[in-house]
């Protein structure tokens, strides 16, 4: 009996994707892109993922991408039973198991990177190739990660993008936009807070050495949210990893330099379970 079932036909109203995965604890909407090449499962970050994202398009040109939306992001109902790091990790492992993927490369950005790293640590035999893009999950006292829960939308975009001023933010003096923004934040940042509040650390440090996957760490050189010094911290704990620093990119490197990120992920295409992983 499977823990989760994937249904291709139904999707919640307002959703652009055609794929829903039902698990014991949550219904997960999955965006898809591409049809050929290696299978990729992509876990998004705190700012969510839009169906028309450049990154999905760029990845989809070379791979078959399945991008599950975390509870609270997208049109699927919220998931009050998904509370802890373990809950999120097992939920996503269930989702991967239900998807029609073969030996997928697990890719995670930001919050999604934190979850992807945990998945690879908890299930080292199942996750054999891992790409972490500016992942959360470690905490360095000397390089403290900004508290997004105490920042305005403008402050967040300024910190996360190299050129934050070009990003639009909701006009909070307009009551209609304010209410929409409050509801979106309650759902998205409310979910993110379960893993990141008050400090974005749920103990990954002690589990990361369990990871057996071939890994790449991808970082924007100007990331002001999770600074590149964290790449070295991850590198120390991941036994089989390499690092790619992407120029002219900040924390939102997947939006700012999607091709460079896709190139770095492509470095994993030729890796397989025969390279240093016990079958």
């Amino acid at each position, binding site marked *: 009996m499977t823990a989760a079932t994937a249904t291709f036909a139904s999707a919640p109203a307002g959703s652009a994707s055609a794929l829903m995965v039902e698990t014991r604890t949550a219904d997960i909407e999955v965006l898809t892109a591409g049809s050929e090449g290696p299978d990729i499962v992509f876990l998004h970050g705190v700012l969510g993922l839009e169906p028309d994202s450049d990154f999905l398009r760029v990845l989809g040109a070379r791979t078959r991408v399945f991008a599950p939306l975390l509870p609270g992001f997208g049109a699927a109902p919220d998931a009050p039973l998904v509370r802890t790091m373990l809950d999120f990790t097992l939920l996503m492992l269930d989702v991967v198991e239900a998807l029609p993927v073969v030996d997928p490369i697990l890719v995670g950005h930001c919050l999604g990177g934190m979850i992807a790293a945990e998945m690879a640590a908890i299930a080292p035999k199942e996750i054999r190739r891992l790409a972490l893009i500016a992942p959360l999950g470690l905490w360095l006292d000397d390089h403290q990660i900004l508290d997004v829960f105490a920042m305005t939308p403008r402050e967040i975009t300024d910190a996360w993008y190299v050129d934050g001023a070009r990003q639009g933010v909701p006009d909070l003096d307009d009551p209609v936009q304010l209410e929409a923004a409050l509801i979106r934040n309650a759902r998205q940042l409310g979910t993110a807070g379960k893993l990141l509040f008050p*400090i974005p650390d749920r103990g990954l440090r002690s589990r990361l050495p369990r990871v057996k996957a071939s890994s790449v760490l991808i970082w924007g050189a100007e990331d002001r949210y999770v600074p590149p010094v964290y790449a070295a911290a991850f590198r120390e704990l991941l036994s089989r990893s390499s690092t790619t620093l992407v120029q002219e990119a900040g924390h939102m490197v997947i939006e700012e330099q999607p091709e460079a990120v896709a190139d770095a992920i492509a470095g994993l295409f030729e890796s397989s379970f025969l390279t240093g992983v016990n079958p």
Partner: protein
Amino acid sequence: MNFTWFNLMPWPDLPSDLRENHRSVWVDLDSRLFDPVRGHHVYNDYLDLLEFADQVGFDGVGVNEHHQNGYGLMPSPNLMAAALARRTTNAALVVLGNSLALYNPPIRVAEEFAMLDVISGGRLVAGFPVGSSMDTNYCYGQIPALLREKYKEAHDLVIRAWTEPDPFAFNGSYTQLRYVNIWPRPLQQPHPPVHIPGGGSVETYDFCIDHTYSYSYLSFSGYRRAGQLMKGYWNAVERRGVDDSPYRAGFAQTICVADTDAEAERLYAKHVDYFYNRCLHVPPAFADAPGYRTIKTIGAGVLSQYSSDNRYDQLSWRDLVDGGHVIAGSPDTVRERLEDLIKSLRVGNLFCLLHVGDMPKELCKHSTQLFADKVMPGLRDVWPEYADDNRFWPVPLPERAIPMTAAAVVP
């Protein structure tokens, strides 16, 4: 009517450039602004005022809980209630209250409230606020999206600890205990009356009705704006088909009494200004952590009263009085306005914020004495049909211990 004398206990020396040069009065206010020597006198003055309120006949004296806050110096309301338990005689100890999710384990609340109830001879009102986002999320690190669930579990544990006489195991998501068996037990049975201070979340109405708790709305925006919110509560009462005793509801109101209306402005305007200008300075970033408010409450249009929409600092004395934020004036003026408040909101419990901002002790005693002598008596019996409703107020021991006085000890 039950009149509770209440003071937020603000720090009286916040700098005049607070808004310009400090980002918040709450959470990360510069700790160097607190001078413990001055604080010694400030706390003792405030306790003097609370004891004075008991002496002049207030039904209750109130304390509350805030953390890391320049306008609320009581991170532990139970310590203040303990300081008052032996030095007050008749007033209820209204602890408004213990923010349940912040006590680990929650049975500490059950134990401390039981101690207060027993030591005071059954004078405790037990308040269980969820707590503001500043206190619960930013100061005490509680995950916003899980806070209400944790609070609810803590509440259930406290009520069981009070009411189940045999030891029991509690296997909760947030607390696991094998032998819950608190000593002492509360004096009032089945437990002290419970008040829930709410800030607008619509779920709180049904919670109060379900458990026969009194819903208190504590807001700085004054009674005129509170009308809509209280209407929501009374609609829920009607929908649920329970009685509409006004003691099901309470309201906190800033009140200043002088001999004349003009005198009230002369005496109190600068202290009211201190409160609204310096004390209510919270940046949008700290106002409501994402996940703190439910979607339902956001959809009902309830915004944090700390949001930058509420620019209290731009309001004059006239604005504050006319808008009902402050009820101020001669005893007649105050009595009239309060009668309007009490009837329009339909409240039986009034929490009288008679100390405001940086008001000095003697001035506050003046206002308090005028209120006790010339305002309270005329309002006591506004709800004669409900005079026997004792579900929401303490029923203390008729004969209580009289604390030994210091004079008796000197040889």
